[in-house]
């Protein structure tokens, strides 16, 4: 840790610019949201944020984001593992492509996934043959959420896997551990914090995602409407207060979840350090 000295110039102006911009662009608008929601009576808040249609949208958004994030933990770990440990043709190219969901505008991902998984689409046709309707159902929502969350898990796990010293694995092997035991007792504990972080990031992103989900969802009331869409719907009816109420619920729940995961990680770290 470097000692920060008062010798270096520019603290005042840079902090001033930062505070001004953060206040104007981030803080004041965000506080407008909470003030608007706080201006509602409980009955009004409940009517807007907990109506049956909105509750169904929470179930889909939170449930779908959970399923997608769990899937991404497994899929992301396998992808990261293969990229770090195995050699195969075009490995570098594949590695670079993992970031595609970060770089591809969400609306493009949305229309592309829909074209792919729609009943007439290439993959949608195949799925329909085995009796699964993908696009315009909650399953389609989960597919889009998997797409948008996958790189978060890969990119948090990959560097940890890369930096893993082989000595511990060698030691375990010399003590007679088989490959599966080495994985569960040596590798998994080391990458677990990264997996949890990746899970949290993928979950949070899927929860708030709009562009890539909205096209494939089909948006049937009570069935395949996501929570961000409910905010848009309220806004289209000029119901600012209702939109603020739903947004507040989403922000608070997402914030509490991230807080829980952060403290779980801190607890894990102190426990590991205490050993």
């Amino acid at each position: 840790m470097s000692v920060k000295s008062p010798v270096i110039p520019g603290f005042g102006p840079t902090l001033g610019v930062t505070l001004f911009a953060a206040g104007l662009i981030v803080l004041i608008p965000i506080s407008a949201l909470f003030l608007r929601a706080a201006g509602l009576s409980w009955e009004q808040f409940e009517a807007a944020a907990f109506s049956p249609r909105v509750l169904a949208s929470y179930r889909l958004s939170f449930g779908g984001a959970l399923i997608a994030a769990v899937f991404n933990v497994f899929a992301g770990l396998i992808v990261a593992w293969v990229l770090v440990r195995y050699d195969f043709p075009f490995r570098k190219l594949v590695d670079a492509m993992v970031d595609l969901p970060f770089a591809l505008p969400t609306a493009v991902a949305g229309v592309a996934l829909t074209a792919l998984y729609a009943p007439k689409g290439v993959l949608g046709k195949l799925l329909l043959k085995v009796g699964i309707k993908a696009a315009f159902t909650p399953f389609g929502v989960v597919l889009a959420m998997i797409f948008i969350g996958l790189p978060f898990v890969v990119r948090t796990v990959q560097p940890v896997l890369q930096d893993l010293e082989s000595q511990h694995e060698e030691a375990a092997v010399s003590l007679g551990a088989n490959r599966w035991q080495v994985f569960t007792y040596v590798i998994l504990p080391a990458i677990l914090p990264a997996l949890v972080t990746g899970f949290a990031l993928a979950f949070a992103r899927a929860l708030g995602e709009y562009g890539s989900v909205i096209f494939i969802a089909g948006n049937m009331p009570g069935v395949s409407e996501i929570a961000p869409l409910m905010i848009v719907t309220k806004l289209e009816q000029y119901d600012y207060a209702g939109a603020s109420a739903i947004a507040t619920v989403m922000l608070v729940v997402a914030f509490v979840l991230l807080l829980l995961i952060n403290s779980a990680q801190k607890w894990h770290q102190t426990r590991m350090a205490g050993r």
Partner: protein
Amino acid sequence: MSSSLNPLLEPRGVRIALTLTAAVVLLLFLFAPLVVVFGEALSRGLDVYLDALTEPDTVSSIGLTLLVAAICVPVNMAVGICAAWCVAKFDFRGKSLLTTIIDLPFSVSPVIAGLIYVLVFGLQGWLGPWLRAHDIHVIFALPGIVLATLFITFPFVARELIPLMEEQGTEDEEAAVSLGANGWQVFRRVTLPNVKWGLLYGVLLCNARAMGEFGAVSVVSGHIRGRTTTMPLQVEILYNEYNMVAAFAVASLLAMLALVTLAVKTFFEWRYAKELAAAK
């Protein structure tokens, strides 16, 4: 490779199974959507594709997207550098709170990012009546789109620079100051060369997001054809009109932007790794 005897490697069958699983996941979720974009865009041939791209509303959406990025990227670059400078080079009370605020836009749904600006500048918003009285349009106009994009792309540059500049410490800068350099000279000659790849990386990601943002912009834009539609919104409008070739033609431009972004990003990482290796 005598891999089957290497105890640090999985059995051959397991390796093949894992590689195939990864390949299937990446094929279904990454490559297939990309191929579909170009396939659908060119499904009626090159002429139809080019006609779709030269349609006036589409051309104006390209112009608007470039304009928004041209405003947002330099602003967030300047603010990001300032934020990284004061956070990485100084200690002060409330620093972790400030970094949390800087990171906040990453964890807010794009739709909520749009909503908060409607609450401030919209007709029923805080400043709505005043703006209306003075005939100033923010929501459903360019300023609203710029503000929402500024919010969404706010953390990108600072996020890349802060860890780099913290790692670098303050000794070089202190030496420069003791030799009589002023603040700007210290930044230009000492700090910037060390963090230039990180800065370019942050600017690149900021630009990609600024051009591609959909949710936040969709809420504040009002979708006025040829006036307040950016390229991602134009994709949506054309798609909802079942004009698939045109929708995917615009989408293909954005997909190319994403591919170029990934290529340049990989190049930056490669250059940065090379310089790190050379410095050792």
